[in-house]
């Protein structure tokens, strides 16, 4: 069985809608939920998710903690997606909140690119705090960075197929995946960025994905409050994933 991870931006389109959609998620079908915390500059995201960051409604601290509590009760592993530029000043508190809300791990897309010198220290710190640091790799990750991060962590690996979320560039997936596999061994790899339909899912699986993460394609359902469409999409993705497993 392959994994299905869903991505949401905190506060988008608003807290109530978001909560309603989260409540539709069935732990039988979905293996993980990623919550993106709105960033002033979500630079490695595509236009659609970027828009979700800038349009997200700020819930305030109270409301946010409440939301996280609800999330924590769903019995689905939770992962935060946060830019290091946003959390670096406040990392202790951030980690505490995540841990207390039952998060399993944290994805930091800009850590190794923009803060390479600090990255090992930060990874150690996160791991020591009791959260998993989820390595984020892409076809452009250098061998030595992959090897190093694998040695510092033990969780699954987030593999970004596309250069940013929500876009779809022609891609030869095999070489990048094979290279990471040859270094990371059998660690679980979840593929994300740019998965928009069942063909993309099947291609990811064919290329060795242990699961997929989707985000951009969910946005329109939340925006139009189309719950059936959302449920249907999750179902179709699930089927496409199983199709190959």
């Amino acid at each position, binding site marked *: 069985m392959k994994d299905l991870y869903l991505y949401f931006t905190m506060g988008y389109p608003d807290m109530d809608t978001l909560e309603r959609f989260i409540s539709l998620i069935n732990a039988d079908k979905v293996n993980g939920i990623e919550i993106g915390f709105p960033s002033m500059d979500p630079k490695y995201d595509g*236009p659609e998710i970027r828009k979700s960051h800038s349009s997200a409604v700020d819930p305030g601290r109270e409301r946010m903690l409440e939301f996280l509590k609800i999330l924590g009760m769903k019995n689905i592993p939770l992962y935060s997606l946060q830019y290091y530029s946003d959390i670096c000043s406040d990392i202790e508190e951030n980690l505490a909140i995540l841990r207390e809300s039952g998060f399993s791990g944290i994805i930091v897309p800009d850590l*190794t*690119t923009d803060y390479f010198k600090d990255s090992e220290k930060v990874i150690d710190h996160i791991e020591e705090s009791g959260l998993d640091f989820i390595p984020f790799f892409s076809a*452009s*990750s*250098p061998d030595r960075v992959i090897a190093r991060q694998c040695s510092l962590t033990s969780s699954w690996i987030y593999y970004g197929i596309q*250069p940013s979320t929500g876009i779809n560039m*022609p*891609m030869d997936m095999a070489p990048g995946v094979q290279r990471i596999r040859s270094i990371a061994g059998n660690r679980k790899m979840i593929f994300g960025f740019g998965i928009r339909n069942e063909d993309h899912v099947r291609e990811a699986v064919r290329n060795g994905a242990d699961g997929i993460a989707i985000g951009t394609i969910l946005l329109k359902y939340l925006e139009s409050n189309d719950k059936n469409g959302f449920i249907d999409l999750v179902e179709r993705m699930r089927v496409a994933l199983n199709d190959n497993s």
Partner: protein
Amino acid sequence: MLESYREEIIPEKWYNIIPDLPEPLPPPLDRSKGRSSIDLLNDIVPKEILKQEFSFSRYVDIPDEVREQYIQIGRPTPLVRARNLEKRLDYRGKIFFKFEGATVTGSHKINTAIPQAYYAAQEGSSGTVTETGAGQWGTATALASSLYSLPCTVFMVRISYQQKPGRKVIMNTYGADVIPSPSDMTGSGLKFFKENTNHPGSLGIAISEAVEYAMKKNLKYMIGSVLNSAITHQSIIGLETIKQLELEGEKADSLIGCVGGGSNFSGFVFPFLNDHEDMDIIASTAEEVPKFTRGEYKYDYIDSAGILPQLRMFSLGADFVPPKIYSGGLRYHGASPSLSLLVRNGRIKAEDVSQNEVIDALKIFAGTQGIIAAPESGHAIASALRYIKANKNEKKTVVVNVSGHGLLDLGIFEGKRE
């Protein structure tokens, strides 16, 4: 055996350094509000090039057809022991130069023009468009397009258009249309053209025009430098050099090249990096365009109009209009991300050279090796002369990439200073 000699030197795969970098490469950045500026490339760049751009395979197969064209256009280019220069400098080490000016279009630019035109033709494109500074890239694009019967349009930085009428003649001879930039044919051009109909232009502006024109006319935009796919294609320079040195039983101690967008330098140097930890590597830039020494390492636009994505690189600002120096090919505000990363990280040393120092270096090189090198390549030669002077008593094996010939840039020899 002749063919097999050539085939022994010409590699079967290009090399892409990204998986071997010491740090991850910051990805291109999409600052656009509407349509993704990365996604936009889908319309104007051949699919196969985008695949290469975004798949980051360490090795990329060179199609047989492209290897054949590499032979047709003069590859492998010679690696020559510059014995006359050694004698003149009284240097007891060895100086080699790789001469990319030996290609039929006169520079390394054809190395990437051919695969780009090849893929464009394979994918049924109706034509190509690009910008050119020195004229070398436009020439390469024009020929590559001609080889695949693709109509070709070139936006040429106006100052070069005026200084180098020969380049225009050659591009026309290859069948291309050449338009001085900024022009009134695109929005990005018109903005500057209206200000000053004799605006000298810049590569940044010309890129914007070419990209806009590609979108408007449904043409393929040819990538001259900066982007990783072009740099990967240029790896043929370094791969050949490694093989040629090996066949000569030599080992390089130092590599020196010039940097405009970074393609000839990176293509020359990158294939060496893994196995040669202790080499001196020097990137030579123009004092008038001091991207590494005075630029900032930041995300900045590829083109002046900001149509294309941003890249993390050393940059003087996408709206920087460089002074009118002879080295038209160095008049670019940035340098490719992978090279920028390695300069920032200290693996590659960067230095600026003034036009006067370049002129002297070109004359010494001409008088000894007989080669009228391109002004751009003159920076590499000047840096090599500096390096040799500074290491006079060490017997280093210095390898210089001479990216092009300057037979169409003779103004620099006439004592006319820009």
